[in-house]
């Protein structure tokens, strides 16, 4: 069976090098503005950095995928076009796009450029995936983290588009691209601004009741001294519903699908994506190293594959919330 590609996050040049050095088949990255969905201060690449990263990765045989996966807007449309021109000029291996208009621009202006469908496109069925295939010739689709593996497999039976799945890292419980919770609370959404629950709207407030986390004034959670205060990602706070206070939308868990790797390999998944462009080079190194070993182990002998306890322990040390879930791929809540 063809080997699954390991696609790792590169928020910075050191993170890119960490990914490449520890066995990533490809890295994905973004520019320093709202053209990508990790528009955070201190993150991402200018053109010079992109060139440096690209030559480093290519020298070591790794691909570079540029995420231009927010939605272009009328007043600033040219920013997305310029970014795409830059990507094509520098010679990135593919661009990851969400917007049909931008795909049309790519096809018209840079017909040789390889296009990947971003998870932000919200393509959860093969009719949608095939729409983008027919119209714009996309080669690969990253599927939202809401489908079960059975649904992914059924989708794959009806398309020739390569499928990339998220394997590890932060987990959106909502369909990517169809979540406006962040802009409802603070004005900036992943679709237009490229960030969810952005840092500028976050306040940590020490109170007699405990550590409060607020997003544009909205109380997302309150932690007792015994609890570790988490980043106030909107969907992972505790709220009151019908008299109960609980994680009403999602526990602060992160995704870890190591155990599903043989199944994903059998299905013919083209690539596994590791989330975390906002994370440190140390995180990227650790996670890439473990997933490299796991993918190689599956390739050697899928039937005998078991996630090694040392791998899981290594991943546990870097994951947010220290709790793991298989996410929607296997649906305990269904």
């Amino acid at each position, binding site marked *: 069976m063809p080997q699954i590609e390991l696609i790792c996050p590169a928020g910075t040049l050191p993170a890119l090098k960490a990914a490449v050095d520890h066995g990533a088949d490809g890295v994905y990255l973004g520019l320093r503005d709202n053209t990508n969905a990790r528009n955070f201060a201190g993150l991402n690449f200018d053109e010079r950095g992109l060139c440096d990263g690209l030559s480093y990765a290519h020298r070591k045989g790794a691909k570079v995928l540029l995420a231009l996966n927010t939605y272009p807007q009328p007043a600033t*449309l040219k920013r997305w076009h310029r970014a795409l021109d830059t990507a094509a000029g520098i010679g990135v291996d593919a661009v990851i796009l969400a917007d049909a208009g931008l795909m049309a621009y790519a096809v018209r202006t840079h017909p040789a450029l390889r296009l990947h469908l971003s998870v932000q496109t919200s393509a959860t069925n093969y009719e949608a995936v*095939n729409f983008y295939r027919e119209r714009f010739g996309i080669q690969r689709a990253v599927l939202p983290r809401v489908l079960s593996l059975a649904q992914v497999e059924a989708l794959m039976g009806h398309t020739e588009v390569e499928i990339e799945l998220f394997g590890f890292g932060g987990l959106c*419980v909502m369909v990517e691209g169809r979540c406006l919770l962040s802009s409802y609370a603070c*004005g900036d959404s992943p679709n*237009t601004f490229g960030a969810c629950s952005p840092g500028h709207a976050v306040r940590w407030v020490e109170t007699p009741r405990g550590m409060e986390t607020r997003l544009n004034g*909205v109380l997302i959670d*309150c932690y007792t001294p015994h609890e570790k205060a988490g980043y106030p990602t909107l969907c992972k706070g505790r709220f009151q*519903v019908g008299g109960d206070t609980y994680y009403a939308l999602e526990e602060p868990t992160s995704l870890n699908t190591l155990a599903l790797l043989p199944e994903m390999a059998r299905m013919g998944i083209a690539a596994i994506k590791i989330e975390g462009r906002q994370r440190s080079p140390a995180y990227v190194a650790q996670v890439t190293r473990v997933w490299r070993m796991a993918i190689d182990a599956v390739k050697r002998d899928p039937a005998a594959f078991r996630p090694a306890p040392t791998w899981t322990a290594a991943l546990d040390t870097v994951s947010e919330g220290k709790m793991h879930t298989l996410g929607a791929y296997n649906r305990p*809540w269904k």
Partner: protein
Amino acid sequence: MEVTLRLALGPLLYYWSREDTLAFYAAAAGWPVGIVYLGESVCSRRSLLRLPDWLGLAERLAVAGKTPVLSTQTLIESESDLKTLRRLVRDGRFLVEANDWGAVRLLAEMGAPFVAGPTLNVYSPDTLAILQGLGACRWVPPVEMPGAMLAAMQIPAGLETEVFAYGRLPLAYSARCFTARHYNLQKDDCQFRCLDHPDGLLLNTREGHPFLAINGIQIQSAQVLSLAHRLPELVASGVEVLRLSPQHRHMDRVVQLFHALLQGALAPAQAPERLRALMPGAPCDGYWLGEAGMAYRQHLGQHLGARLPP
């Protein structure tokens, strides 16, 4: 001021009893709305009305002089979801609102005109032009789109713009059911608890501040969007249709109020106070101003400034 805007009744986002739903549309047949969206756009498990029931309602509303539009499901995951979608698209008698690009593909294949729904994420004039080329005759911008962005959209001639103008805002969709989660039920055995929450299940912050509303797999705003007081700005931005999203109580009066507004019988500045008594929550209008969606600024006309008609 009399304006040529038309009113549309958006798709029913909640799960009401069959009797309530049928009574609602029987009443709506007599309301001053030109367009009525029908169909289950949120959850595939909701089946008190099936496609033939919705088609029957569409026929009756057409006889009453309304333009019915069938809204597709927004999150289409399974082959069974796709089957429902194909049946809806291929009926062919009524206009369809595409809420997923898979639906756009099927409608374009059929050469059928369609409404491009708010979850297609159209923020770019290029994307809008593509949709028109594929057969879109009307589009609904994402609910988070500011008025200033809409005014800059270069809307092609012949393509109508419809704006979500009243109701709890649909904000997010998941494969997970948050209503079932609240009741500690599995999604596949949800016991249809959505029926108990005809305006959604309120989610408060730990300070007791209403923040969101849970509607099965959909999350809505707790606050209720109203753009009634922004009518002049809507007109100036090229909006031709206002979508009023059904809430469980007083919808007849909400429609009448918007109708009076369009007729010039009610001044926009008077609308907020009148509407407040009819709404299931506090008002908001922040998205239109390019602010947090939950914000509410009663002040008028700032961002469009000189573009406002006298």
